[in-house]
């Protein structure tokens, strides 16, 4: 069975500072990895995804993530955050057999302060 652990429930950071949101996963099979963002009272939208190939993945809004197979991690980073990045971020994993089930972490609330 797959599982996802997001190590920080809340991350406060000042505007224009860098940020890293941490994610570790466990799985016995090859997986796809995702980061989604959720703004208040909305559904989730995809930030970026790792399917194969280059371990550094770039997404929307200046975010990027690095897949580390040996450490089973997929941490999300942004070099300089904006107030508008305040949201909840979810790491997720699905197996490569067709995406039948995607498992999400508990989420990390990013709070950007002026």
């Amino acid at each position, binding site marked *: 069975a797959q599982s996802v652990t997001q190590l920080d429930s809340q991350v406060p950071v000042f505007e224009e500072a860098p940020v890293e949101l941490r994610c570790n996963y466990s799985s016995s099979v090859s997986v*796809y990895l*995702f980061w989604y963002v959720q703004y208040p*009272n909305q*559904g*989730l939208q*995809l930030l970026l995804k790792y399917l194969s190939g280059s371990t550094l993945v770039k997404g929307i809004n200046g975010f990027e993530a690095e897949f580390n197979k040996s450490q089973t991690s997929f941490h999300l980073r942004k070099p300089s955050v904006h107030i508008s990045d305040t949201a909840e971020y979810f790491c997720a994993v699905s197996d490569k057999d067709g*995406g039948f089930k*995607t498992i*999400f*972490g508990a989420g990390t609330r990013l709070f950007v302060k002026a």
Partner: protein
Amino acid sequence: SQTIHQWPATLVQPVGSPLSLECTVEGTSNPNLYWYRQAAGRGLQLLFYSVGIGQISSEVPQNLSASRPQDRQFILSSKKLLLSDSGFYLCAWWGQGNTGELFFGEGSRLTVL
């Protein structure tokens, strides 16, 4: 392009009352459909998924049920709501040719009093 719609957006129901949340997808055929529940501080919990009409898999034993009467329609129901059913319910779809990502509706917030 594909779109997904959920309704109602907000619902306040008394304990013991029935529930019906509806989700429809447009612009695609034979999608995998999912219901997730989001409770505060607990992330997204997969409740049900469906790979075709009439095919429902339940992930968590609970007071809820799901049905898929048409290819692009997914319904979440309950005969008698519990306080613990309160939460934010999200419908999502995954289609063939898609590279694994889910597309979510706007969500339905249920408060059981």
